[in-house]
């Protein structure tokens, strides 16, 4: 049997190929979209998150700085000067040894007690950081808190009890912050036997505070004075004792510095 042979053209493969090629454009578009999302949008998104937190922090800083600037502008310069004078009276910026000794002498004279002895070892007069009791606010090994820096005077007085009480009152009414640490009293009856004399020895801590060498960070807030701090400053201001107690001037010039006075 002879079957006819017809040569059919091979067109199905080309049709298939052209059909699959038409998928190229959308697939390419999707790929490009993913590339954009991955390499442009995602990094920018993380940068945006970082920027947002940075901006929040900056906004906070701006707010704090503005508040600080407003607060600083609201202070009355004259009132601050007065408060500075009062605070300087409370805690002088230097040890003020001689003004203190002068004050003690005056207080003794005014109280009617006899000042037997004043013993002080002030150390360096200028070096703020080289003092024995240099401690801003710390604690001693014994556990007792120390506040501020102080010089110690050992004072010995004699007088009647009323005068001693007056001496104490006068010591505590001095504008400079003084504290009596150790006190010993011994009574001795006078030769007439009528009135008793009191011999007192005490250690007086005279506090001082050097000026700060540098300001805090510009962003640190301005701390308000508490009511008790204001009360202390007003108390000193109200007494009118703003000026530092003067040390009496003495004539100078001696041909023989070794001759006795």
């Amino acid at each position, binding site marked *: 049997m002879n079957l006819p042979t017809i040569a059919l053209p091979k067109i199905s493969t080309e049709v298939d190929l052209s*059909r699959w090629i038409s998928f190229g454009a959308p*697939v390419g578009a999707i790929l490009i979209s993913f590339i954009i999302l991955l390499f442009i949008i995602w990094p920018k998104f993380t940068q945006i998150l970082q920027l947002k937190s940075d901006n929040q922090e900056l906004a906070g800083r701006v707010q704090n700085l503005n508040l600080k600037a407003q607060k*600083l*502008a609201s202070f009355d310069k004259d009132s601050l000067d007065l408060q500075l004078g009062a605070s300087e009276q409370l805690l002088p910026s230097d040890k003020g040894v001689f003004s203190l000794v002068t004050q003690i002498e005056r207080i003794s004279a005014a109280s009617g007690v006899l000042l037997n002895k004043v013993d002080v070892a002030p150390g360096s007069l200028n070096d703020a950081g080289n003092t024995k009791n240099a401690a801003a606010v710390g604690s001693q090994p014994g556990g007792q808190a120390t506040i501020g820096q102080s010089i110690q005077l050992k004072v010995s007085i004699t007088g009647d009890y009323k005068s001693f009480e007056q001496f104490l009152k006068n010591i505590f009414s001095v504008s400079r*912050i003084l504290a009596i640490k*150790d006190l010993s009293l011994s009574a001795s009856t006078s030769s007439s036997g009528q009135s008793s004399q009191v011999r007192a020895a005490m250690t007086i801590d005279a506090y001082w505070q050097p000026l700060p060498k540098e300001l805090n960070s510009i962003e640190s807030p301005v701390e308000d004075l508490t009511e008790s701090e204001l009360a*202390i400053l007003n108390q000193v201001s109200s007494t009118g004792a703003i000026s530092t107690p003067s040390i009496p001037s003495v004539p100078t010039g001696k041909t023989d510095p070794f001759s006795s006075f």
Partner: protein
Amino acid sequence: MADINLLPSEERTAERIDFARKKLLAVSIVILVFTAISTLATLGFYTSLVSKRSQLVKDVQSSSVAISDLQATEELITVVKAKASIADKIVSTRSNLPSFFSQLGELVPQGLYFSDFRLSADKLVISGKARSSADMAGLVTAFSSQKGAEIISNVTIDSLSSDESGAYAFGVSAQLVGK
């Protein structure tokens, strides 16, 4: 009964591929539009944040300049605050001795006197003489009273001895109370 599909199989395949191509095209357009919008939105938001940041930096600088102009005031308030704060702490912790002695005087019986008085680190040691045991009892009672408790606590009688005249020599220690 099964459907009779008279379309040739090549044509049916071509239709399915065409349908898939159209679907893919639609999806790709949606993704492209989404990408374009999100790119624009992201870049726009980023630009606005950058400009806001530069504005904030300028604000920080201007506020810093304003504070620097008020540096003298800041120095004053810093010094005043530092000194007043320390002064307040010292005043609040120091013993008010004038008040203590004033209150102590009110507690001591008349037939009794102190010969020695030592105060060190809030520890108080007193020695003296009482005319009689009643005067000594009066002192102890006064120290133990509410008024006495305001100035001293932990009162201890360290020694008590009488002589031939009936007077009592005593030693008392106590703790100073706060201010």
